[in-house]
């Protein structure tokens, strides 16, 4: 199968609650009472699909949101609570036709066997539009929700113990993705034969034990779910540092990074490409997207004023791991094209207020990029891999005897 020619820029949108600004829920467009209904999420994804976006990601976590990086809080003035992202994606899949669905999964406390069949099934119910965004959890309170392992409370971020601990979580996540991927391949595409003459439903020589044995877990296989339509659904991860860059380089199809300028973007890309080479994957396609928080308004100055108003409601200026953009769709298009020149192949935009900034992306930014010939005018492929110009991979076990 040949890869579909990719469009010049790829665009994804990161969905989280009512938006990425902590006061976003207070905007009249925000619909905070509907956060736990299917209709709310269906409307957001329909809007993203209307804008021909490549995919949406859905944030998730195994504990309540918090204003602290690693500890819980008891704030009542921000959105708390969320639905399981994989099931939310599955609920939306039959209502959409083209857009990719990429839920967040936490590797640290979950079973790769369960997750592999869940994403394979998301791929079936969406007709080949599934992916996952893998995340680790270093939060002691989330570990206590499972009671199966102790996570030390990180106090000094730069201590060697912390570095070792976090590196261990990322190594485990890499093993996790390895198991998930092997399980997707554990059935060859033509394993189901329905041979009435011999009474055999499957050709069992085309099912494979994955026999994974790692430091953290062993998984035998095969999966209970046949190989999904895309063969390998999309694997993505957010990375801010060398250790997670290595996870991206070893296991991902798309990495999200957080450059603050084009020089920074080039440096990150160089590091990821070097890791990719070290992992022996230099010849394989790997998209690197920049994450940006966006406040978008047509009128010059309006977006910055809106951010200021939201910051006042929140009681503090909004800060992010990613670059925070305020401006017009045309200014954002300029910035994306400038970043595009560094070798980044796309962007994952985090709308500050979903009810406002998502339509600003789909109805403002997208037409602007289309006018510049920098974004698709129609969906050109039937699968998420296809939209990203990624071929359907051969099965790693197909030639095993």
């Amino acid at each position: 199968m040949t890869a579909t020619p990719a469009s010049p820029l790829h665009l994804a949108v990161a969905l989280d609650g009512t938006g990425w600004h902590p006061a976003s829920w207070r905007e009249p467009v925000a619909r905070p009472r509907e956060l736990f209904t299917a209709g709310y999420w269906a409307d957001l994804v329909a809007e993203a699909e209307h804008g021909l976006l490549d995919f949406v990601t859905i944030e998730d976590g195994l504990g309540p949101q918090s204003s602290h990086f690693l500890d819980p809080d008891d704030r009542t003035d921000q959105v708390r609570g969320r639905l399981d992202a994989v099931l939310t994606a599955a609920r939306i899949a039959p209502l959409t036709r083209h857009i990719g669905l990429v839920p967040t999964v936490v590797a640290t406390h979950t079973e790769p066997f369960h997750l592999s069949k869940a994403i394979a099934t998301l791929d079936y119910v969406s007709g080949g539009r599934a992916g996952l965004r893998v995340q680790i959890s270093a939060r002691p309170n989330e570990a206590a929700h499972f009671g199966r392992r102790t996570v030390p409370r990180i106090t000094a971020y730069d201590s060697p113990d912390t570095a070792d601990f976090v590196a261990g979580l990322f190594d485990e996540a890499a093993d996790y993705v390895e198991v998930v991927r092997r399980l997707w391949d554990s059935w060859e595409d033509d394993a189901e034969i329905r041979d009435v003459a011999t009474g055999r439903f499957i050709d069992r020589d085309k099912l494979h034990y994955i026999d994974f044995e790692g430091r953290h877990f062993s998984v035998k296989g095969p999966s209970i779910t046949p190989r999904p339509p895309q063969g390998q659904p999309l694997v993505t991860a957010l990375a801010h540092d060398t250790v997670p860059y290595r996870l991206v380089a070893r296991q991902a199809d798309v990495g999200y990074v957080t450059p603050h300028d084009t020089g920074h973007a080039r440096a990150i890309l160089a590091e990821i490409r070097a890791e990719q080479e070290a992992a022996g994957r230099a010849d394989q396609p790997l998209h690197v997207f920049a994450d940006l928080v966006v406040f978008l308004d047509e009128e010059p100055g309006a977006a910055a004023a809106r951010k200021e108003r939201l910051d006042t409601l929140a009681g503090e200026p909004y800060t992010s791991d990613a670059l925070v953009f305020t401006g017009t769709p045309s200014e954002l298009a300029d910035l994306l094209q400038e970043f595009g020149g560094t070798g980044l192949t796309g962007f994952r935009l985090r709308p500050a207020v979903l009810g406002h900034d998502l339509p600003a992306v789909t109805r403002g930014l997208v037409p602007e990029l289309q006018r510049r010939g920098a974004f698709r005018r129609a969906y050109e492929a039937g699968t998420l891999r296809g939209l990203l110009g990624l071929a359907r991979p051969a099965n790693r076990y197909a030639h095993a005897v």
Partner: protein
Amino acid sequence: MTRPQKQTKQIHLAAHFPGVNNTTVWSDPRAGSHIEFSSFVHFARTAERAKFDFLFLAEGLRLREQGGHIYDLDVVGRPDTFTVLAALAAVTDRIGLTGTINSTFNEPYEVARQFATLDHLSGGRSAWNVVTSWDAFTGENFRRGGFLPQEERYSRAKEFLATAHELFDSWRGDEIVADQTGGTFLGDPEAGAFAHHGEHFDIHGRFNVPRSPQGRPVIFQAGDSEEGREFAAAEADAIFSRHGTLEAGQAFYRDVKSRLPKYGRRPEDLLILPAATFALADTDAEAEELAREVRRRQVSGATALRHLEFVWNRDLSAYDPDGPLPDIDPDVDSDHLARGRAQVRMYRDPLATAREWRELAEANNWSIRDLVIHTGNRQNFVGSPSTIAKTLNEYVQADASDGFILVPHLTPGGLDEFADKVVPLLQEEGVFRTDYEGTTLRDHLGLRSPVTAVQP
């Protein structure tokens, strides 16, 4: 025997998606995919069109093996239960969505999140068939391996369910105020707080899914052991039982319902819903013929040999399925050839079973295949639409059950005829709904809302 005068019961009906066993006839030219979403959509919409209470999905977490090989004669493979149910919530409106989820190779926080999410995303239609597993064979697919001793499977299941209930109940349902002007999202800073310190689970913190429309999913139990029955009487809203005959059904029904008072529960708080297979045709005679034909398709020569191996515990592939039974005796010393199956535990005394079967086969001049067909399960209900409607109703009114979970032999169209021809007769009889009266699965099943443990 006289019964006290009582009200006519309403029948509950559910649809079991055809499973990975030889009840499912994949060799029929009409048999469709067991994986493609379109099959699930067809099946669920048929059941909803017929106003069924719920759809039921089974689950197994390791492919079955026999003689060291993956068992290849039945349907193999299924989608992930939660994911396919969430997707079905998008293409259905009222029907309940019941998933079989294992309490051994899962953790309460994650499963509670998944059920609470499914309940939100379906508007209150989720149900959980709680099953256990202890075998190291399945454990090879999971982080902990075969960690749980057999005798602890129910104690873990009980504590798992109790813990999940604590998580569901950690939100009362009134915490989200989302006052956009005043700036208060959460009315209670402690929403979702929980702490459970038990033998199997020692967890604490904050549950992060607010209370769902049903509060808790409807709980099913499927085990038939003494422990299983007691667990159901204490905890379950419904039992998925295997007692499909009138007498066995009545005995089971009496037994389980009589256990309820000691838990302060009423008879109608626990529904008995046996699995039921059927062969439906225009006339009774045609249905009998169809039943025979389906049985032969369910038991191919190859399947007959493998089933005989459950008892003999030897490789019998050299035998002719159309010939006589083996004259050698079962191997009672070796580990069992078949792995990942419940059936093998049914034959407690293989030598006696083998003797009995040889005698049966000789007396009737049966081949191996004939014997397996005759000793295997016949369809529970065979007949014309009116015969089946009448018999189903008789069973329910005679307290052999409160309804049935129908297990058709064809995917995805195996319910079509039942929906079109049997359901209208039950509706005319006034024993089955003509439309949904409520929106949640609890409404359909006539179950009370769960009492919240945490009081405001």
